[in-house]
């Protein structure tokens, strides 16, 4: 029997009111793979990430993280699964009343209760150094630039050494150079942590660079899944348009 995929969607349906956001979507993300999800706005990309971390439940279908079906799991089981996951939100979502240090310490205090305060401090220092923010440890989120905030959000997502990293629009609101620096960090994370990455993005260049495969969603349906080279030859006009660099 083969190992379970890092993430698996099985016939997932999700609606918000009358709007069908995901319509019978099925795919797998393999261990250690970076999958980029692309598509026009409002096609269910961010919803897919939220389903993966259990912030939303599908109307029907299964969402499996490893061998765990998180749709039907208890809060305790979901918490155990989340211990191995990190989420970089589009807006970084740093708690604005906390310093950078406290923002990073929060996941350790809440999801890894075995660590002493000294170990937490060490883990926070190491992770901030990894993303180049070790000198900004005492700063409040409001004192950081957009790119720094994104890196801080990434540091918080990485502080638990996640096996699965979910990233929502890493390059949104950033200039080309800063976006490229974030892509570099993601590649470094993938290599050093051997993490599986699921990245929602509109940035074609970044997706081609970081993603091993690309999934394309349109009107709630998965219309393309494969490597960039495979999708370049897709019969689907929208797929070719979305992943075209020009």
């Amino acid at each position, binding site marked *: 029997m083969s190992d379970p995929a890092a993430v698996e969607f099985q016939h997932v349906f999700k609606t918000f009111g009358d709007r069908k956001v995901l319509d019978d979507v099925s795919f797998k993300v393999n261990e250690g793979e970076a999958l980029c999800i692309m598509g026009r706005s409002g096609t269910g990309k961010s919803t897919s990430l*939220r389903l993966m*971390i*259990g*912030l939303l439940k599908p109307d029907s279908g299964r969402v499996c993280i490893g061998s765990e079906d998180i749709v039907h799991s208890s*809060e305790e089981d*979901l*918490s155990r699964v*989340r211990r191995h*996951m990190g*989420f970089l*939100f*589009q*807006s970084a*979502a*740093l*708690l*604005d*009343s906390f310093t950078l240090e406290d923002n990073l310490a*929060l*996941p350790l205090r*809440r*999801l890894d209760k075995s660590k002493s305060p000294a170990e937490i401090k060490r883990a926070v220092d190491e992770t901030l150094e990894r993303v180049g923010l070790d000198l900004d440890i005492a700063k409040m989120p409001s004192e950081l630039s957009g790119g720094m905030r994104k890196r801080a959000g990434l540091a*918080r997502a990485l502080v638990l050494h996640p096996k699965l990293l979910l990233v929502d629009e890493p390059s949104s609101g950033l200039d080309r150079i800063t976006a490229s620096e974030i892509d570099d960090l993601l590649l470094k994370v993938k290599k050093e942590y051997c993490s599986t990455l699921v990245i929602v993005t509109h940035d074609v260049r970044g997706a081609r660079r970081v993603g091993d495969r690309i999934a394309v969603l349109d009107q709630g349906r998965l219309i393309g899944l494969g490597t960039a080279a495979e999708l370049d030859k897709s019969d689907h006009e929208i797929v070719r348009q979305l992943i075209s660099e020009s």
Partner: protein
Amino acid sequence: MGRFFTFIGEVSSFGLKALVGAFRPPFEWEFFMIQIQEIGWRSLPLILSAGFALGVVLSMHTRGTLVQFGAEALIPSLQSASFFNELGPLITALLVAGRVGAGIGAGIANMRVTEQIDAIESLSVDSFKMLVVTRIVACILILPMLTLFMDFASMAGGFLAEYFASHISLQLYLDRAFKTVEWANFIPPTLKTSVFGLIIATVSGYFGYTTDEGSEGVQRAATNSVVLSSLLIILTDVVLVKAIFFLFPRNAV
């Protein structure tokens, strides 16, 4: 009208859920202490300065009238009766509704809009307990204490105004002020502000936590929090005063 009752039902169930949550572990002590500081400590300058100024103003107004009847000796007791019974609790609650209510509404709504609440939930932390329950409990506990500060600041203001007008001694002023004050007309009005605290934090927390309209929602949450909690405080005060008169009939005399 149907929508109004639906709204009242939703806010009530929101508050009830928070009160039940307050007694169920895990307890968010760290966040609770942050709220105590934010709601209590940071409101103190406003409460003290407003209380002091109102004490001076009330004393000046009553003096003008009472002097005509040769009853200026009643000024201290009128001052203490007005503030301990009604003005202190009500004005404290309205000031806190303005300062803290808007802060709670806008703060939580902003956290919703900027995905901070999702970030908290993604760590398997109950964001409702962390953000709403802590604020509600802090408001319930802090309001009576702030009311005491308002009462005594107003007495200080009243004394100062009287001192400059008639050179009354502090001992005589306090003696006259507290001669008519009994526990029954001091404790219940002070404690009723816990209900005002519950109203402020519940209404503001509800508007903030349930917003889904982006930055416009943040603004609306702040405005609605202040307007509705102020209105509910005044309406509830009528009921609470009636209840206090029923339970402590001497207060009504």
